[in-house]
């Protein structure tokens, strides 16, 4: 399926990451957004409030973040492609509905333009402290997908990927921007609509009476329907059988929850997006994501210029975590530095996957500022020596 030429703003633009995210969502076919103002994400919904009335979309500013994180799920079950936009404190309120989306297999995107926390924290300053929240924030066992862009262009490109993944796997997808990426101005090339390929929702073609909303007909993701097609489905956040009916027992729970997890975990290779350079034979490899990866790129180049063998890995897909990638780094590099704007989140995943085979170091801060290149270079030198 191609993007809609009447809506895509084809051309070369000089815009920030937030606006690029909004334009990417439009290109992805998103025509309904429920939001609530919160720094530093607000420009996304402001842009959509301006753009949507001209392209047949609808933005509604809800009464709070909780409402915005479920109103859009109502719209999705009405047939829309949709996302919700927020930041730290709002995302904390929305977590119950991440769980609802996981349980009901609602294809949706949660945008989180990260700021410093905990609590109200640093509304206008960047952080990458919500990485574990994205993974574990709602109660119960479930899996999400999370992508971290590092430029306005990537905000455009990867929000489309986020929508594609949500449709393909029928799961909540986090789009983990940060304040720096959201407010960073840059060149964004928006291609013609016919060059933007989109993943279509896997709608059932089965007639009423021959369709069960949670039966697996093929693959590991059920076919979707929407309200009004005569399927008369029941959709619930309770543990449910393949008819969608509540079933309060351990057996149904086991079948359902394992499937919700495995439909993601069995496709890590397809979901995982990363860049890797010069890992083989390196004395140390830097792993980073989002804004921090931009600093890492500069620091690694500088260190290489000084004759240090440094590998560089940038993660775009944060969840599901790619263990195989880390094992590959461990086999080809003598040490790892994980750089992130937090006091240690992804580093725990890297340590787990590295299994003590090489030393894993954290280069982090408590949020509020990017990690400067000098700190990177000093850390690289310290680890290598």
């Amino acid at each position, binding site marked *: 399926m191609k993007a809609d030429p009447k809506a895509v703003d084809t051309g070369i633009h000089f815009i920030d990451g937030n606006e690029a995210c909004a334009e990417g969502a439009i290109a992805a076919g998103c*025509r*309904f957004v*429920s939001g609530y103002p919160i720094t530093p994400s607000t420009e996304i919904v402001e842009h959509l409030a301006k753009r*949507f*009335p*001209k*392209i*047949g*979309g*609808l933005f*509604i500013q*809800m*009464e*709070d973040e*909780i*409402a*915005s994180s*479920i*109103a*859009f*799920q*109502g*719209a*999705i*079950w*009405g*047939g*829309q492609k*949709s996302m919700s936009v927020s930041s730290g404190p709002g995302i904390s309120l929305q977590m*119950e*509905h991440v769980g*609802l989306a996981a349980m009901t297999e609602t294809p949706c995107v949660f945008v989180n333009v990260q700021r410093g926390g905990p609590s109200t924290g640093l509304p206008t300053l960047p952080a990458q402290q919500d990485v574990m929240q994205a993974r574990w924030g709602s109660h119960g066992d479930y899996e999400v997908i999370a992508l971290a862009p590092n430029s306005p262009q990537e905000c455009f490109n990867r929000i489309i990927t986020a929508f594609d993944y949500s449709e393909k796997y029928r799961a909540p997808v986090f789009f983990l921007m940060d304040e720096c990426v959201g407010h960073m101005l840059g060149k964004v090339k928006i291609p013609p609509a016919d060059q933007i390929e989109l993943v279509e929702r896997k709608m059932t073609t089965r007639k009423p009476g021959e369709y069960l909303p949670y039966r697996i007909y093929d693959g590991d993701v059920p076919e979707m329907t*929407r*309200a*009004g*097609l*005569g*399927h*008369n*489905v*029941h*959709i*619930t*956040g*309770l543990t449910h059988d393949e008819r969608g*009916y*509540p079933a309060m027992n351990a057996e149904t729970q086991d079948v359902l929850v394992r499937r919700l997890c495995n439909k993601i975990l069995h496709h890590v290779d397809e979901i995982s997006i990363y860049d890797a350079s010069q890992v083989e034979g390196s004395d140390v490899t830097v792993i980073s994501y989002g804004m921090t990866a931009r600093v890492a790129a500069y620091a690694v180049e500088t260190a290489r210029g000084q004759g240090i063998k440094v590998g560089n890995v940038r993660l775009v897909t944060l969840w599901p975590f790619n263990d195989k990638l880390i094992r590959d780094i461990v086999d080809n590099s003598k040490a790892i530095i994980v750089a992130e704007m937090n006091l240690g989140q992804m580093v725990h995943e890297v340590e787990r996957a590295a299994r003590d085979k090489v030393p894993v170091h954290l280069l982090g801060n408590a949020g509020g500022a990017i990690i400067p290149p000098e700190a990177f270079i000093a850390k690289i030198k310290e680890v290598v020596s």
Partner: protein
Amino acid sequence: MSDAPRNPVEKLLRTERMPHIWCPGCGIGTSVNCFARAIEQADIPYDKLHVVSGIGCSGRVAGYVNVDSFHTTHGRAIAFATGLSLSRPSAKVVVYSGDGDLFAIGGNHFIHAARRNIDMTVICINNFTYGMTGGQVTPTTPLTAKASTSPYGNFEDSFNLPNLAEACGAVYVARWTIYHVRQLTRAMTKALSTKGFSFLEVLAPCPTLYQRRNKLGDGVAMVQFFKDHSTIKNGASTSEVGLGFQSDMIVGEFVDRQRPTFMDNYNARMKEVLGDSFVPFEGIK
């Protein structure tokens, strides 16, 4: 399946899910019976009717009606229904839930959906308690009534729901009890046929928890009480219909007015400001 005549409301029900979870004497099932008849009378095709519930005993209604139905999170049924209603302009969206769900945890969504005049019907089964969790106090529990979390009697003032709904902008507001099945069915039919935000309060017995704790007898006793202590007063001022503990109650149709809906206002404003560059949101027909 035998050839015996079926109950006329059966086709609205997911009979394969019977027996339901509601206690003997509970009023929720009676209200669903009225609802099924109202859908027939309002002549709404089942694929144009979507039912959304929150959490609780009344929140289970969505699971028993044989239409596209959504059992959402606690208190958030109206917020979900807002998105669903906007994206399905040709359908009627009904929120069916209880007093605790709609007016404690969900109160904020109720007032804003009414203010926006979102096209939906909200049916509140008011049994004065949280049934599913064992009979705790709610925002509608009358003063002095006992609940498991107000063991010495409730000391908080309760909501007057019709008054709240009117103040927030609902275009149709009525209250009936489970005794008044015909009037309730007619009110539901009217609400289903009304464009905009309509609200129905349905007073219902909870013999297992609310009544047992307050020594008010069984389900039949409460229906008898509703019969003996209710006065029909259509058009009554909603400021005068507040409820006390086992007080007399005013029932009837209180508000019936017209206001532009959320989408009416959106379309008018955008057309005025953007002119021909406005592209209306069509939703999915």
